[in-house]
């Protein structure tokens, strides 16, 4: 299983990436500081709309878009916003982009808009976006903030997709709406119910804990 040569190769590849600061901002959102699995942020949409892979992907994309645009604006306005009212300003910026996203999704697919429901609006109160604005974009240059937002956004999409895929396959026996399992497969209805969301996320967290444990032992 463990080929020592390829392992060395991998390490070199990652360390060469790590040496350049700009890719570092991007990479950290994917794994080391993954917003969902490590920071446990923005849980509400993660659990609520991850009942199918398609919903999860759409939600992830919408959130990533809002994150990117609000990070861009917050970072470019960081020298003009007074410190006392900064949170209110960030929230206003985020709410504006969420309204844009809401109208855009409605224009693209009414069906999707219906199945995501109020959770598009609730992107406003996704703690991930506000915390990136506060902790990163308000202190860093535009370029760095964009990379950070991209990394975090992709990490968020990845996490949502992990959950959505598992829940759809087990809960409805299909993937992106195509059923591929044999007909006598009994779908686990539990997985598309609210409780399934909690269990699936707990399962993924356990999985990552096991991996990290293995790594630290080696």
């Amino acid at each position: 299983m463990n080929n020592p040569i390829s392992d060395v190769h991998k390490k070199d590849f990652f360390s060469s990436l790590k040496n350049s600061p700009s890719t570092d901002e991007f990479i950290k959102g994917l794994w080391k500081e993954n917003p969902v699995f490590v920071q446990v942020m923005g849980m509400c949409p993660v659990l609520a709309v991850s009942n199918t892979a398609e919903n999860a992907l759409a939600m992830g994309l919408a959130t990533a878009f809002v994150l990117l645009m609000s990070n861009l604006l917050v970072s470019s306005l960081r020298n003009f916003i007074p410190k006392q009212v900064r949170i209110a300003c960030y929230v206003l910026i985020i709410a504006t982009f969420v309204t844009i996203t809401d109208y855009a999704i409605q224009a693209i697919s009414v069906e999707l808009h219906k199945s995501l429901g109020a959770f598009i609006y609730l992107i406003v109160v996704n703690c991930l976006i506000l915390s990136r604005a506060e902790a990163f974009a308000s202190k860093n240059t535009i370029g760095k903030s964009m990379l950070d937002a991209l990394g975090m956004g992709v990490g968020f999409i990845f996490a949502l997709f992990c959950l959505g895929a598992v829940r759809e396959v087990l809960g409805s026996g299909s993937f992106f709406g195509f059923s591929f399992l044999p007909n006598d497969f009994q779908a686990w209805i539990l997985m598309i119910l609210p409780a399934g969301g909690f269990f699936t996320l707990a399962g993924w967290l356990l999985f990552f804990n096991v991996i990290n444990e293995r790594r630290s032992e080696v």
Partner: protein
Amino acid sequence: MKTESLWYIFINASLINNFVLAYFLGICPFLGVSAKLETATKMGGAVMFVMLISSMCAYGIHALLVAINAPFLQLISYIVVIASTVQLVEMIIKKISPALFRALGIFLPLITTNCAILGLALFQTNKEYGFFESFIYALGAGAGFTLALVLIAGLREQLEFAEVPNIVKGTALTLLIAGILSLTFMGFSGLGSN
């Protein structure tokens, strides 16, 4: 739309469609502030208060926005109202009980980003509730949120003494408990559907 009795609205918001365990709203404080029973109770109270005020304001704002025909301002005005209410609550708590203020810490300003409150304002608008119905709906949602928070805080306090494997420690364990709690709340789903 069929009119619902106020009692039904209350039970529906607090038990059948519990905001935390059925709608996944307000998961962040649910996971974050639920380590101690006492803090959890007070947090529940604060959230309930913010919910009541912001739901009343949301009712007024919605009527105003319909009158001037500007639905695209809905989200922005709701969030501003919620943020100011939270600021108010923060000042009150700081004045009345500095100890509680320190205990709640960062989670007090974060009530602003508690999806349960914005979700409540949006749902009541969608369901076209009147003034009293909105009030009862907010009361029920707040009670449901507090109930869920207190339940999980109690469970977590008991688990402090249990020996769990290393990999399950932390968030994963809390999520597993939450899942079981959510299953339990599904038992209420038969209520009121006669």
